């Protein structure tokens, strides 16, 4: 394992000292708080997203912990049933709309996409700022919706009709919040696609683009393709609440199933908005710490695009038990199986990259390895519920809860932590301590397993999801899961505290602490306001480690 001191010594002596983007504002002349709130700088916006999104994540994490604490014993433990319903709704809405979807693209995408493409900013910098404000307003609306109206919204994050329409709580406002957040995410996607095509360094061909940027591009397309569908669905909920048109009301000729179709037409692709950037992060980390070119670069690029396309055509696998026709069930089940192929291609590529590599253990790599393990379990259990026969058995049980947490949290969540540890020295110019990071990451991984594996078993035994109370035979499993939950939270808190402590220790990080090959490692940490001091030199292949290996050999590492 590399120690922190080793890595701090890898100073690039040729790097001239320049002022970072913290010292210069864009547009120039802004000072103090204004230089942040009115900034057009993609790096500052990325950090502003980081601050807000971490706030939401921590909040929703504690809500989740409350939920599992409540379930640790039968009957009432710490809250009543109504509070429980509101809490899981809030946990879901915040985690999905305010953490998972914007998480990696809005923070690390904003910060690193332009740098990886060799340019100074995104194509529409002002639109980028506007997206951030939309995001803030969306969050604000979500908070307000809690306290106006008759009680907290308790529909679950899916807002299924008729409950979302007849409900006394202020669901309309919650839905408006989600609508605004959707718009923010769509505009970010639009910005990224345009940046990708128009701002890329002239010497960078399509097959010379770093994989994280490719994954953002695929994600951005899904955001543009799918988000308007959820927007119109939310508009319809609001209209139904105000005017009672009856488009989803069987008494008035409507069909509630159509709501579910419209909802999942967006929300299933949204799952890929959450996971594809995470896969991009892992595709950056694995080759660097294996000192070996990524295995199957083109296969990873195409699998990202394939997931984006195939993933848009599988939405109705959420509805196998809803009473739709057997033909649809068959078609959607088949398509769901097809999505597994490109995902498996990626896992295969990561493993093959490490094979016979010169592996150097660091916190980002450890987190990436945990990602691969947990994501594979999540993906494979996805096949259990993607096939219509077995889904009938486990539909709407704790099995589903465990499955999507393995993919969303074990996948995207750990990719987020990995990205945070990977790019932290670049974003802030300081290095954190490795030991607490390893301890935090391991605790989080172990806690995760303890937390969610019992839910798989509970689900197979028949315990439904979203229930406040349960039969005595489920108590052991639920108690164990709650115990794992505490371990998980302790692990995450350790990681975050360790990262925050690095501000106090102020150990300066070099421009390239890891031995990276993509453009962000050629600029100072933290980067100057226009990212590049001299014209970026684009390598003919983004994952060629020959130079890095030579540099290490010379410095005797």
């Amino acid at each position, binding site marked *: 394992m590399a120690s922190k001191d080793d890595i701090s010594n890898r100073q690039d002596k040729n790097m001239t000292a320049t002022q970072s983007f913290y010292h210069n504002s864009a547009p120039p002349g802004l000072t103090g708080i204004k230089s942040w709130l009115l900034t057009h700088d993609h790096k500052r916006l990325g950090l502003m997203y980081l601050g807000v999104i971490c706030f939401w994540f921590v909040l929703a994490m504690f809500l989740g912990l409350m939920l599992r604490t409540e379930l640790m014993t039968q009957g009432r433990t710490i809250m009543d049933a109504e509070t429980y319903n509101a809490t899981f709704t809030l946990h879901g809405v915040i985690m999905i709309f305010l953490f998972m979807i914007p998480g990696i693209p809005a923070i690390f995408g904003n910060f690193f996409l332009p740098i990886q493409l060799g340019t100074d900013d995104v194509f529409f910098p002002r639109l980028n700022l506007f997206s951030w404000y939309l995001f803030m307003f969306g969050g604000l609306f979500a908070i307000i919706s809690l306290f106006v109206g008759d009680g907290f919204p308790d529909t679950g994050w899916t807002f299924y009709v008729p409950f979302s329409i007849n409900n006394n709580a202020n669901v309309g406002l919650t839905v408006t919040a989600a609508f605004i957040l959707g718009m923010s995410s769509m505009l970010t996607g639009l910005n990224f696609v345009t940046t990708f095509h128009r701002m890329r360094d002239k010497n960078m061909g399509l097959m010379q683009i770093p994989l994280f940027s490719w994954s953002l591009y695929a994600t951005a397309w899904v955001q543009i393709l799918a988000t308007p569908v959820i927007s119109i669905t939310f508009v319809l909920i609001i209209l139904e609440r105000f005017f009672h*048109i*009856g488009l989803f009301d069987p008494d008035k000729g409507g069909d509630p199933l159509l709501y579910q179709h*419209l909802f999942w037409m967006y929300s299933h692709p949204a799952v890929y908005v959450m996971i594809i950037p995470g896969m991009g992060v892992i595709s950056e980390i694995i080759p660097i710490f294996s000192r070996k070119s990524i295995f199957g670069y083109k296969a990873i690029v195409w699998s990202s695009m394939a997931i984006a396309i195939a993933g848009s055509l599988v939405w109705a696998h959420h509805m196998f038990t809803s009473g739709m026709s057997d033909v649809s069930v068959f078609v959607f089940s088949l398509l769901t199986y097809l999505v597994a192929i490109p995902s498996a291609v990626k896992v295969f590529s990561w493993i093959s990259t490490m094979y016979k590599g010169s592996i150097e253990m660091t916190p980002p790599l450890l987190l990436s390895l945990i990602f691969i393990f947990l994501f594979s379990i999540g993906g494979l259990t996805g096949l259990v519920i993607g096939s219509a026969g077995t889904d009938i058995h486990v539909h709407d049980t704790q099995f589903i809860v465990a499955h999507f947490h393995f993919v969303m949290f074990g996948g995207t969540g750990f990719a987020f932590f990995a990205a945070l540890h990977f790019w932290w020295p670049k974003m802030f110019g300081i290095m954190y301590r490795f030991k607490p990071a390893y301890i935090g990451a391991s605790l989080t991984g172990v806690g995760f397993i303890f937390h969610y594996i019992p839910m798989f078993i509970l689900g197979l035994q028949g315990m439904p999801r979203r229930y406040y109370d349960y039969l005595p035979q489920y108590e052991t499993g639920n108690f164990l899961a709650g115990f794992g939950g505490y371990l998980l939270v302790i692990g995450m808190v350790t990681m975050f505290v360790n990262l925050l402590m690095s501000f106090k220790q102020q150990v300066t990080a070099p421009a390239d602490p890891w031995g990276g090959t993509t453009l962000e490692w050629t600029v100072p940490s933290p980067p100057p306001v226009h990212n590049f001091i001299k014209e970026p030199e684009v390598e003919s292949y983004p994952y060629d480690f020959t130079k890095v290996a030579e540099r290490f050999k010379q410095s005797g590492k």
Partner: protein
Amino acid sequence: MSSQIDRTGIKIGMWLFLYSEIILFGGLFVLYAAYLYRYPEFFAEGGKELNRVIGAINTIVLLISSFTVAASITAIQRNAKKQTIVFLVFSIFCGFVFLVNKYFEWGAKIHHDIYPNSETLVSGEPGVNIFFGLYYTITGLHGLHVIIGMILLSISLVLVIKGKVNSSQFSMLDNSGLYWHLVDLIWIFVFPLFYLVL
């Protein structure tokens, strides 16, 4: 930031946005398709109650305004400021005429107790209720887009008068024009779906 303005890039961004608007309406058209399949005869019945003459006039008004917007963009490229202003004012006027027609149309329907959750629709045939529910939702959303389009054109008009939009810098007008064409295009689909349905 490069000092040169990348017009192609701005246009790509605008087209992506327009595309998302089409998907927005696409969700409603999916609902329309599903319900048309379920209630074909009631959709035909509902369609007959709509005033085809007003619908046709509105279609023509929008088509003409689309032409004048396109003409205004050509005019600004030729540096004919006065022409541009005339064309733009006329286009905004067309949008206004469209909305007035819509107002009378909706007014008449509401007067006949046909509006969401009205007594006639709730106690009547479910298929007819769905038809008018979709009619109000889709034309309402389209009307909102007409208003947004008019606002965009008005902003462009002000900028043209101020000289900030001119023959070398007309992306704002260009994109507002694109938006207006989108509004027109969506109406071209909405018109037959409601007024001319069998």
